[in-house]
């Protein structure tokens, strides 16, 4: 029996990280008491005029560039008309005909291959008020009304829930690293609507839209459940209707909300209160040049420094660490990343602090990494002085001196310790000479144990190799 194939398209609404709203000068911040950041424009008072926020346009343009879109040099806004309490002026200002970016793509990695997901368009619009429903009443908070959004609409290019999730992960990574949005799905600053259809032939089936899914993993579950539901309907002789649904995480199923509106129902027409907006070549070039180093470029740098794939992804997932590493181009990044992802991160988690809260200056960190890289200090010393490195303004040398930390660099003393260890581990020497290189680590460990971790590692290594060769 021929199987149904899924076709998936995704619309993402993403709040832009501006100080103020899209068309008004009230604060863009709704994680505060209700109706605090509001003004006459947000409330749709008659006689008010929207004025475009320059920075919001810059962020939207940055997104359009990063999503490889063709940029509309001359744009206007449109009114999308509908009646609902969260939109008191009766229309949402959006871009229907001249979106800021069109015909772009995002590259995802799926099963070891690269696949391009087409971006139909990316347009600027304003958010609506937030509604909280309780029994027969709704409660409105206009702090969110007018918050700048970009809506990113894909082509129906995804064929599985894995592809959809990979696309969202990549999109989130791009928007977050370029400082365009917080991308906090749990707080609603990134919201997903998923269009799903199934078909046994090349002709696309009727699609449904599942709105406002709360997490990327839920997107995967919602797609699979909706496809399963559609298959059951079709197999039982029914037909799929174009409708808007929502996903219940609790019940793991999609639930009908309403029969879908079409473009005509919204009666789009140009927003006459906002003149044409033009983007010059110089301006586009300037915005392009302001884009920071993006994750894929950073991955290449880390790979060049022989950082493991697992650690590369761990660094990318923690933008603070990734940004911090950008400060260094002449240290061993592998050691640096190990310290940051290991002991330093553990310390920060324990103390509930951020890296920026500490006194770990670039200079101090560089010294530590270089000393570890040259084997001038053992790891134990770093662990011992970690709290001091992070919490005091003292230099590395001052901390070492103040804590009476000494590394044994006395060749004669080390020679004696090394020979004692070798005398007690004759079989290990034979194993090493038979090609078991890992034995060296074991012997190093024994010496470090004997010296309570204070021996100069590079010196120990040198003496150890010399003494083994004599036997």
């Amino acid at each position, binding site marked *: 029996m021929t199987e149904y194939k899924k076709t998936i398209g995704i619309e993402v609404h993403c709040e832009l990280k501006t*100080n*103020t709203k899209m068309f008004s*000068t009230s604060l863009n911040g709704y994680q505060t008491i209700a109706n605090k950041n509001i*003004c006459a424009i947000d409330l749709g008072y008659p006689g008010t005029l929207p004025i475009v926020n320059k*920075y919001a*346009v810059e962020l939207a343009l940055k997104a359009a560039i990063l999503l490889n879109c063709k940029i509309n040099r001359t744009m206007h806004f449109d009114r999308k008309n509908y009646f609902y309490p969260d939109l008191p002026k009766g229309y949402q200002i959006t871009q229907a005909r001249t979106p800021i970016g069109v015909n772009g793509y995002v590259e995802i990695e799926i099963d070891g291959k690269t696949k391009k997901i087409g971006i139909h368009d990316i347009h600027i619009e304003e958010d609506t008020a937030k509604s909280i429903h309780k029994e027969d*009443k*709704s409660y409105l908070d206009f702090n969110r009304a007018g918050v700048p959004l970009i809506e990113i609409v894909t082509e129906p290019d995804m064929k599985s829930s894995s592809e959809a999730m990979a696309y969202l992960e990549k999109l989130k990574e791009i928007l977050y690293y370029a400082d365009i949005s917080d991308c906090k799905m749990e707080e609603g600053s990134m919201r997903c609507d998923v269009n799903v259809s199934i078909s046994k032939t090349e002709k696309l089936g009727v699609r449904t839209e599942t709105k406002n899914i709360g997490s990327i993993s839920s997107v995967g579950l919602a797609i699979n459940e909706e496809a399963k539901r559609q298959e059951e309907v079709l197999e039982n002789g029914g037909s799929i209707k174009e409708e808007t649904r929502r996903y219940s995480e609790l019940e793991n199923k999609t639930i009908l909300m309403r029969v879908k509106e079409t473009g005509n129902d919204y009666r789009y027409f140009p927003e006459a209160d906002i003149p044409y907006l033009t983007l010059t070549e110089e301006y586009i070039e300037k915005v392009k040049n302001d884009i920071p180093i993006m994750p894929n470029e950073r991955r290449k740098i880390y790979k060049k420094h022989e950082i493991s794939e697992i650690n590369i992804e761990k660094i990318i997932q923690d933008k603070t660490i990734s940004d911090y590493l950008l400060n260094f181009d002449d240290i061993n990044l592998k050691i640096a990343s190990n310290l940051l992802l290991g002991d330093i991160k553990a310390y920060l988690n324990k103390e509930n602090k951020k890296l920026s809260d500490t006194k770990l200056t670039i200079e101090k960190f560089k010294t530590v990494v270089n000393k570890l890289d040259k084997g001038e200090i053992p790891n134990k010393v770093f662990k011992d002085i970690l709290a001091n490195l992070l919490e005091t303004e003292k230099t590395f040398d001052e901390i070492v001196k103040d804590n009476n930390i000494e590394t044994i660099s006395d060749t004669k003393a080390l020679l004696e310790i090394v020979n004692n260890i070798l005398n007690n581990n004759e079989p290990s020497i034979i194993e090493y000479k038979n090609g078991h290189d890992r034995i060296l680590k074991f012997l190093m460990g024994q010496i470090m144990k004997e010296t309570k971790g204070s021996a100069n590692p590079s010196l120990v290594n040198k003496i150890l190799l010399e003494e083994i060769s004599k036997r």
Partner: protein
Amino acid sequence: MDKLSKEEVLHVADLARIYVSDEEIENYKIELKQLLSDVEKIKDVKGYDDEILISPTDSFLTPREDVEKDTVEFNDIKKNIPNTFGNFVEVPVMINE
């Protein structure tokens, strides 16, 4: 034809639900004709391929800086809101689930 007929004027008056006297009919025969001639000009617009007119002025947009000002206090707008609950605006529920 440089003016409308009496029947045409009365038809328009009927559509608009207004009474017009005989004297007014004579004026409207000419005025309505002029008005309709102006409306006819819409036919001269070339159509969808033209750059659409979104604004009566030729000026381009000057965006504003991303700086906060002009916020209003919720207490000041409460008088325009029939029902509130704490700091929320209260309305009848409108979800159709």
